[in-house]
């Protein structure tokens, strides 16, 4: 079986991830930080070690600014709903995932002003368009670090500099980049990073979080959830300090045990080396797919300007037909449709049908790329000769 759906979730996971989760179940298993006994302290250490690991990967100076939670969606909701209120203006791109677009559209209904900066047909963005969109009332700019549909990298660092000049905050959705492309809190001028543990960070599903930079006044960032934190239990109001203010409820400690092992694996391999491997797979795929008659590729098709995720369509085959043929006849796992990103597909000109997406990962090989190219070639030829129309 060939797994090319790493943009949705990376698979397989490093063996150490599975071992760490099994060890937690067998040997630790207690509630982190709800009691002072040894097992609870050990569970608490896992939570804090996860903070340290995330901080190292994303180049965050202070691990206590890493708030842990369920996934990128939760982190984006926390940042967006926590910061914005009626009368505020927010800017985003035309390449966002629905985990950004839906909260923003929801806020529009209560009087938040939204500007969606258009991107080029390959998904790229000119940072000056963000500069032009910023107003006096702009509180926040939200950017997808890399597109989950075609991999296009957005100019995060330039936009961050513009935000700093204009007293706005930059929230980056690093779901597609953390672990596979360098993410640097300070160098990239980022104020908030939403991350998810189950993609490039190689951890299990149900782990993620929000990094909260020093330009964010936490009094201005309302928690999404209120409840028990194992701290200041004498108080009936939510704690006002990091990270507890945003970490109510028992953590996914078993997941975090796995996430630590996943991040350690990534750090040991090196993000640059991972990126190089994935880029070489992408280059091989693009070189081959480009020459297939009837195949249309989307996005930059340039390894320097994107992650190892790309999309295509085949003349005469619907996305669902293509996905099913890849799965059933060629044992290749792709993902077809709109990828939770109608806005990005509008930018790419592939709305409402979507695309067939290939997300290459750390464990894919050149041989698998060659097999998939042969499969695509056969499928395209079959569609041509049968004259099937969509």
């Amino acid at each position, binding site marked *: 079986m060939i797994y090319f759906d790493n943009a949705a979730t990376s698979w397989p996971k490093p063996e150490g991830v599975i071992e760490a989760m099994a060890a937690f179940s067998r040997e630790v298993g207690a509630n982190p930080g709800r009691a002072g*006994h040894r097992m609870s302290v050990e569970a*608490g250490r896992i939570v*804090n070690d996860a903070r340290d690991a995330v901080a190292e990967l994303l180049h965050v100076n202070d*691990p206590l600014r890493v708030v842990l939670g369920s996934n990128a969606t939760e982190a984006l909701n926390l940042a967006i709903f926590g910061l914005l209120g009626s009368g505020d203006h927010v800017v985003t791109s035309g390449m966002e995932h629905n985990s950004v677009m839906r909260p923003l559209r929801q806020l529009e209904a209560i009087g938040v002003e939204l500007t969606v900066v258009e991107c080029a047909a390959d998904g790229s963005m000119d940072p000056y368009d963000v500069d032009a969109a910023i107003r006096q009332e702009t509180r926040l700019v939200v950017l997808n670090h890399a597109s989950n549909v075609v991999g296009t990298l957005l100019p995060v660092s330039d936009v961050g500099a513009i935000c700093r000049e204009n007293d706005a905050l930059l929230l980056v959705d690093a779901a597609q980049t953390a672990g596979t492309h360098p993410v640097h809190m300070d160098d990239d001028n980022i104020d908030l990073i939403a991350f998810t543990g189950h993609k490039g960070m190689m951890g299990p599903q149900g782990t993620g979080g929000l990094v909260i930079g020093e330009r964010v006044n936490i009094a201005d960032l309302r928690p999404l959830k209120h409840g028990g934190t194992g*701290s200041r239990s004498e108080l009936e109001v939510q704690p006002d300090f990091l990270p507890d203010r945003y970490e109510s409820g028992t953590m996914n400690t078993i997941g975090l045990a796995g996430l630590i092992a996943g991040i350690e694996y990534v750090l040991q391999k090196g993000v640059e080396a991972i990126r190089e491997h994935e880029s070489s797979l992408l280059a091989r795929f693009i070189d081959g797919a480009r020459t297939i008659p009837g195949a249309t590729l989307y996005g930059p098709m340039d390894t320097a300007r994107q992650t190892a995720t790309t999309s295509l369509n085949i003349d005469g085959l619907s996305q669902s037909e293509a996905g099913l043929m890849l799965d059933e006849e060629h044992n290749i796992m792709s993902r077809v449709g709109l990828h939770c990103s109608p806005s990005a597909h509008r930018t790419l000109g592939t709305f409402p049908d979507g695309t067939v997406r290939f997300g290459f990962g750390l464990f894919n090989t050149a041989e698998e790329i060659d097999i998939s190219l042969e499969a695509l070639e056969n499928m395209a030829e079959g569609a041509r000769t049968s004259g099937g129309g969509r």
Partner: protein
Amino acid sequence: MTEFCVALFYSNSHALRAEKLAKKAGFKVKVIPTPRHLSSDCGFALRCDEDDVPAIQGIMDGDSVEYDRIEKVG
């Protein structure tokens, strides 16, 4: 005989961060349940030798670890 002190924190995360930093610097410290008579808090406290208090305080201040106070325990 060495006298012990405990550092009291607002947050377990900060207590565990202090433990990690102090251990890394070579100090003998231990996370313990916060003694009832010192605080109504249900979280962790950090026990250390009295002699090491100034150095450990310095480490915590140098990082962004926030603590309530340090008390001597009998």
